[in-house]
């Protein structure tokens, strides 16, 4: 198991390096730069600025400078937001994004698993149909539209919840964003859970368990849940990365102070440092998540061999 984990970690390193390289060159090869503002800067100022951020050097040198800094854990300076470097901005914005995404993740996963199980046990009865409807809405309605509709209904008409913005420490401001984020995730999880649970309930060992006189609950708890969770577990990694990237959009819509706000503004301003830093951060998280999921999977499913 340890060897397997180690091999997986090692094989992720070249992937990460290639991805960083691709990001770097896509950004740099595009026309435009961080200092093409509306007011043209005096040439000497521009030259000094470019020299300060190493933009005057050949692209390949810039690349090696960037990689060298990255290996030392330095994501470089922000080129538009004065006096901040990227690591600082990430430290300010990312904990918030992570809180929102993880809250949505935990809530959505628990609801999804539970709802999927209830629907599977009551297949083709009313709880099943209610679930199918909720799932359809979650999968089909895009998050920005869901956000707009929920804001309108709960924020404006009913006035139960704040429609947007952020007051420090207020949980109520997070209810709508987390709902918007969690709904599609819960929908996908419950669909997976329902499908695999139905399959598991039809297997011979579940029939054996039933026929030896175990009650419904014991059959579910002892025999059915663990194998039925397998497809759900393999979705958790991609699911969390969807939540983290989706959180960028939701923050933008609800005006929350997470990393998403910085990212979109930075992309519009061609602030290479922040765009690249955020992308790299996300990439590492996603790679780590996939790794974690593979390990959990190997532990859950005795059929997986560590090659």
């Amino acid at each position: 198991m340890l060897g397997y984990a180690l091999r997986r970690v090692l094989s992720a390193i070249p992937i990460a390096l290639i991805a960083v390289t691709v990001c770097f060159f896509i950004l740099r090869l595009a026309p435009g730069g961080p200092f093409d503002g509306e007011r043209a800067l005096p040439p000497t100022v521009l030259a000094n600025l470019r020299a300060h951020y190493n933009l005057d050097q050949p692209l390949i040198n810039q690349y090696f400078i960037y990689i060298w800094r990255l290996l030392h854990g330095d994501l470089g300076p922000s080129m538009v937001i004065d006096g901040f470097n990227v690591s600082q901005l990430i430290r300010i914005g990312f904990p918030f994004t992570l809180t929102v995404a993880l809250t949505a993740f935990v809530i959505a996963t628990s609801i999804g698993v539970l709802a999927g199980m209830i629907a599977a046990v009551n297949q083709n009865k009313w709880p099943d149909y209610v679930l199918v409807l909720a799932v359809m809405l979650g999968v089909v309605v895009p998050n920005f539209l869901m956000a707009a509709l929920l804001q309108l209904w709960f924020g404006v008409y009913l006035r139960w919840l704040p429609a947007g913005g952020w007051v420090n420490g207020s949980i109520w401001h997070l209810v709508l964003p987390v709902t918007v984020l969690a709904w599609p995730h819960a929908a996908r999880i419950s669909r997976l859970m329902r499908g695999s649970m139905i399959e598991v309930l039809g297997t011979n060992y579940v029939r054996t368990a039933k026929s030896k006189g175990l009650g419904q609950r014991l059959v579910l708890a002892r025999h059915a849940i663990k194998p039925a969770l397998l497809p759900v577990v393999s979705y958790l990694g991609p699911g969390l990365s969807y939540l983290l990237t989706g959180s960028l959009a939701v923050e933008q819509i609800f005006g929350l102070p997470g990393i998403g706000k910085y990212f979109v503004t930075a992309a519009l301003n061609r602030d290479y440092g922040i765009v690249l830093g955020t992308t790299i951060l996300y990439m590492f998280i996603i790679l780590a998540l996939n790794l974690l999921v593979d390990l959990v999977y190997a532990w859950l499913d005795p059929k997986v061999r560590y090659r």
Partner: protein
Amino acid sequence: MAGITGKDEVLTAYARKLETLDAPKGRSLTQDAIRRLRRNKAAVVAIFLVVFIVAAAFIGPYFLTWGYAEVDWTAIRKPPDFEKGHYFGTDQNGRDMLARVLQGTQMSLIVAAVATVVSVSIGVVYGAVAGYFGGRVDAVMMRIVDIMYALPYILFVIILMVMFGRNPIMLFVGIGAIEWLTMARIVRGQTLSIKEKEFVEAARAGGAKPWTIIMRHIVPNLTGPVVIYATLTIPEVIIAESFLSYLGLGVQEPQTSLGTLISFGAPVAEVLPWMLLGPAGVLVTLLLCFTYIGDGLRDALDPKDR
């Protein structure tokens, strides 16, 4: 001896009756699939709705009194008014919302069609090549797909759109280029099993080149899964496009798309709800329909999955 039991008579009558009947027709796999699809009520309704929306989006504007960029100075920010011909109301600039919704739907549909074609073409060729050659080629090509899966793709599209200007071509290419990964995986899996079939072996024995085998013998046999996943890609593309437009990175004024319309409608929905509800209704209907059609096609073309 004839006629004692009456058996011969019955048999002769039966033989004559058979002669008058047409030869029995076998049902092809396609006919079978169509029959199964027709029995799926949700899919049939969805197909009719999509046809209706497509027709309305492309033909409808010719029958409207107002153009999508035309300003009616007497009706600014007005709710639906049937006498003046503003069936969906007007926006803050006095433009007819129905005309704008139809134009936006047209744009979203065009983007969806082109981006889906782009992603399907890339995915099919990539997956078929990886699956057919197998071995090290396959390992490297699929590793690349894994890498791209690990990238936060929406960030990439945002970067692409910002960097290369907001022209529709980049929109097509950008969205098409990120949606091909799943298609490539599915096609590769199918190719792995198809390439072991006898007809591929026969083609190889006949001296066909790998490219000919892939394009002439393998790709045509992939139609089923490719059609299913192409249908399921369309709603994803529509969502991606409308999201980018929502952020202000997609289609630009006076052109519009469903996402752009929603992004203008959402902030004023409290006082001008028709500006949000019109485009939102069309968008959700379209997405629902394509999802139902995709599911229906999967059930119809892939009976072993049921």
